[in-house]
């Protein structure tokens, strides 16, 4: 497990905090204290052989140390995304060029030494190959890897930078608005697995319609969206553009805008020029990243950890108290055993496949899959009909390029819609399941056991699990997102790479349909062309439907698995705790006088330790609705 929290309270802590604020790094104060508590508790859990609780605490530690916060940077071509990231990390990690653009998503995170790797698919597996960091450009830019012909899923880079230390990951993406429809979809899917989205638009002009469209989409699938107005060093009228953009943003929702210049920032870093740094506009952006993005993720991790700690303490106390109570009040042991048995039985049901939450989860996903497929088919059928109509109205030969491009775009749009809508529905489902879980769980109170004075305690409710707090839903959702994030991003991307290879429209079109219209066309030659064109369209739409449905189905199954694992783990722990408590009570009831005293002393000591941990648990920091639900 981890080491104890670093440092002691002293003056140096103040400067450390100041430094953290300047460069946006580091774990917050509460997290360090919690880490210590977690360590203590984990040691105790280890002693009592509760490896399942040890694992839970281990996950909490990971999240506390570096709450994985993925920030996806999106925008149209050449708006300055890559340079923005380079300026934030003060390193030329993302390739920039006047002409050439990024062709593969690149994830920049923390590492003790500069390092890079590329992520590729190999059959059904994901492979990671290390590469020298200065070769990264060759793999992720259009010049080295045009159109991602190497079929990479992503590039990764690690840098020893303070701003990345708190778990922040910046993701550079290929520009949207290209002539390839699948890049739009890949970006959309990566948005949904990110903690936050930053859209970059340069100060040469106000938002275009496609940019606003992108923002609206982003806001539906991501909880935290901000915009950056880039290249302010180049445009004297940037403030006018900023005003105009702010007006547009007001109509969309609450989306902050940060006007920056990456050039000025990079220069300021080079020349250690504070004034230039201020002019670059970066301090405000970094503060936002720190507070709203990383800070919020940390907050959630802390809430999560506090909750976990309370839960673990309650479970560990249960066994000890049950045994102690049986030892101290043997006449009461029958009643105690009976209650424990009852609770254990209920918890068995609770963790079973037939429990309400599990059933709802399974049924919900099944329904959602069906709805998704229906929606997808419906939308794509409509597109197909429109295409057929267009083909019938003219000669498909000479306008084939147009048809093909139009079709591509409409398909991308339809698939995006289905994706976003499915995403929203799956969020709701997870919340619904969380509510059910809570409701069922409340029926299994951890048993009232006598304290050392023989006075009955109140029924112990799990801390933080009061309904109306939404803490459970939030925690679960974050857990779900955190775990399926990386896998899904790869998964969807693989599905889409498969898609890109199947493009009969461009491959076969020229051959079969023919591009030229002869003036002396026989009517039946035209009819044959129409027939062939409609066939190609139909086959393409079928293929797309098949592929996309498969990918989305897989995605939903991952949601189901993750949800089941998450809730299931909690239910299993509870069951095990109750089973152990029952056993402990039985042992206590059947113990002999001579062993009693030693055992009682040990148990009292154990409980005291646990109480101490409980006392040090901070109050649950407040949650905001933004952390939980996705609008």
């Amino acid at each position: 497990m981890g080491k104890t929290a670093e440092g002691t309270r002293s003056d140096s802590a103040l400067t450390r905090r100041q430094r953290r604020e300047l460069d946006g790094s580091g774990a917050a104060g509460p997290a360090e204290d919690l880490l210590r508590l977690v360590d203590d508790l984990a040691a105790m859990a280890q002693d009592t052989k509760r490896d399942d609780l040890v694992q839970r605490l281990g996950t909490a530690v990971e999240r506390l140390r570096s709450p994985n916060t993925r920030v996806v940077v999106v925008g149209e071509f050449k708006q300055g995304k890559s340079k923005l990231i380079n300026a934030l990390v003060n390193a030329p990690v993302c390739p920039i060029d006047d002409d050439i653009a990024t062709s593969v998503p690149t994830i920049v995170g923390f590492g003790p030494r500069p390092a890079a790797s590329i992520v590729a698919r190999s059959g059904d597996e994901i492979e990671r190959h290390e590469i020298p960091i200065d070769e990264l450009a060759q793999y992720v830019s259009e010049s080295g890897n045009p159109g991602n012909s190497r079929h990479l899923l992503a590039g990764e880079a690690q840098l020893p930078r303070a701003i990345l230390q708190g778990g922040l990951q910046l993701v550079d993406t290929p520009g949207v608005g290209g002539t390839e429809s699948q890049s739009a979809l890949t970006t959309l899917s990566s948005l949904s697995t990110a903690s936050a989205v930053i859209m970059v638009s340069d100060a040469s002009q106000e938002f275009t319609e496609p940019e606003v469209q992108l923002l609206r989409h982003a806001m539906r699938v991501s909880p935290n969206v901000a915009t950056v107005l880039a290249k302010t060093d180049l445009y004297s009228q940037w403030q006018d553009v900023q005003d105009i953009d702010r007006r547009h943003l007001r109509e969309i929702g609450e989306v902050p805008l940060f006007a920056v210049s990456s050039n000025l920032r990079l220069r300021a870093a080079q020349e250690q020029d504070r004034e230039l740094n201020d002019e670059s506009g970066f301090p405000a952006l970094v503060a936002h990243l720190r507070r709203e993005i990383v800070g919020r993720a940390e907050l959630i991790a802390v809430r999560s950890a506090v909750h976990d700690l309370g839960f673990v303490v309650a479970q560990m106390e249960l066994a000890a108290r049950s045994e102690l109570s049986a030892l101290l009040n043997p006449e009461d042991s029958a009643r105690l055993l009976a209650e424990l048995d009852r609770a254990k039985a209920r918890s068995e049901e609770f963790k079973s496949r037939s429990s309400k939450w599990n059933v709802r989860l399974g049924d919900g996903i099944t329904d959602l899959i069906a709805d998704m497929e229906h929606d997808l088919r419906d939308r794509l059928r409509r597109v197909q009909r429109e295409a057929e109509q267009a083909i019938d109205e003219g000669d498909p030969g000479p306008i084939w390029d147009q048809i093909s491009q139009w079709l591509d775009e409409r398909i991308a749009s339809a698939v995006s819609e289905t994706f976003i809508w499915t995403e929203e529905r799956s969020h709701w489902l997870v919340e619904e399941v969380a509510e059910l879980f809570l409701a069922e769980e409340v029926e299994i109170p951890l048993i009232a056991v006598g304290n050392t004075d023989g006075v009955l305690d109140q029924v112990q409710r799990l801390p933080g699990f009061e309904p109306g707090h939404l803490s459970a839903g939030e925690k679960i959702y974050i857990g779900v997102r955190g775990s399926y994030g990386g896998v899904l991003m790869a998964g969807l991307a693989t599905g889409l790479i498969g898609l890109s290879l199947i493009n009969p429209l461009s491959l076969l079109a020229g051959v079969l349909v023919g591009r030229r219209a002869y003036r002396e066309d026989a009517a039946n030659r035209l009819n044959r062309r129409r027939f062939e064109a409609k066939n190609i369209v139909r086959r393409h739409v079928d293929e797309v439907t098949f592929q996309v449905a498969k990918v989305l189905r897989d995605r939903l199954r991952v949601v189901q698995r993750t949800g089941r694992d998450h809730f299931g783990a909690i239910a299993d722990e509870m069951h095990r705790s109750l089973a152990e408590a029952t056993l402990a009570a039985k042992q206590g009831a059947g113990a002999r006088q001579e062993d009693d005293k030693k055992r009682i002393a040990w148990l009292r000591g154990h409980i005291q330790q646990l109480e101490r941990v409980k006392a040090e648990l901070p109050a649950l920091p407040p949650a905001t609705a933004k952390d939980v639900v996705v609008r």
Partner: protein
Amino acid sequence: MSVPVEVAVRDLLDTARALYGGDAPAQLDDLERRLAEPLRLAIAGIVKAGKSTLLNAIVGERVAATDAGECTRLVTWYRHATTRSVSVVARDGTSTRLPIHRAAAGHFAFDLNLPVDDVDRVEVGWPAPALKRVVLIDTPGIASLSPGTTARATGFLAPDEAAPAADAIIYLLRRLHPADMRFLAAFRDTAAGSSRTVNAIAVLSRADEIGSGRIDSLLSASKVARRYELDEHLRALALGVFPVAGLLAEGARTMRQNEFEGLRELAGLAREDREALLVSADRFVRLTGITTLGTDERRALMSRFGIFGVRLAASLIRAGVPDAPALTSEMTRQSGLDDLVEFVDGQFIGRTVALKAHGILEVLRVLLDQHPVDGASELEEGIERVSLRLSDVDELTLLSRARIEGLGLGAREDEAIRIVGGHGVAVHDRLGMDAGAEPIRLRQRLVERLDGWRAASHDPANDRRAVEAHEVVIRTLEELHEGLRARGEESRSVTSPAGGSELGPADTDDRAAADVMLSRGPRDGAGEDAHEHGEQSQAHLRGHQLP
């Protein structure tokens, strides 16, 4: 020998009018006007691509508004006139004169008296020499956030049910964006009608920004333009890609003496001082103690020339450019404007008659379709006959095809491209000879070529593509031959081979006008003050800004 194309088209329009009698559709009036006017050249592109700036650069005056926010919301026509005037034409056809004033930012402006949605277009008359040879049409941006704006642009340039109102188009791109491709394809489709002419060229605009204002920005822009030219989609839609730094060109062509002096002052600063100013646009305006130029002056220079423009001007002055006219000339050249204008001059304006005729006949066809009338079938035949004579259209088609997929002519391909006007429509250009070549030698070369190509056309190895190419090349050569023989005189520099002197007296003005279009020389402000024309309005700016 048949009548000149222009006369033939005139006859067709007269016939149409006679057929319709009192019920003539309104479009017929416009067609007659169109025939009498110069070539209609539209400037289109995504929002804030720099259309109005480019227009100002071509015209040589700041007639169009170019603010930070989206400006042009309406289709605006610029025609030559002896005095300045602005009229707004409503959807119901009524036209109202509006007073013009000069805006604080330096361009000309007027106030719309109607809601934007009720306006069909704005018509501007301006005494600019460049407008003698071309009618410029400024359009609102594609992909604008204002819903009506994009619709107005596409509705004008690539309408669903009609032929477009422009004869040719300059399309401004900043980057290849799907909206751009969609639009160009739609334009090509409506413009092509049945012959698939590609009379559009692409401009890679705001070229100086591609390199973040660095001194080698234009070099980068050139590379990007070259790459776009090879893009298979764009190739099918445009005849070429020209990088142009519009702001640079506009600033250079409308440079005032005091601006030159300001630039010279900056050129005289020590290098570190100048570079300190050029760190960012804000710093350029804000920093004190480095130059005697005031804040307002610097702000004006920045907005007129941009960071790159200021940098370039300073470096040119340091390299020895002596005065304002010389600076203007060099900056205009470097901006890419000269190359663009040369192409437009050569390939579009040089083919005015045929392109106009093609457009007019296309509209006439649609008109007859939508408003049937007795006797229309004969008229339609007449239209077909004249259409077949528009060899320029076939030449452009061939040039376009050569770019997309080649002509299948092997070693003779370059010569074919040259003959159909790919390097200039003047006779000597087509034959690969000097401008001063004597008619006798021109005739000799012409006959040589004609014989050679006629012989080559019988080669059984020619595939379908090559056969078609041969047909067009031979036809061009035959018409040139006709033209030279009929006139038996000095070759003209700027005429279309089909049918001789279509433009009449205007022809001799053509060459002079070509020079005037790119007249060098700083504008010292003469004649630009609105009050000289008695049209000053004290009303504040409200609503649409303009020329």
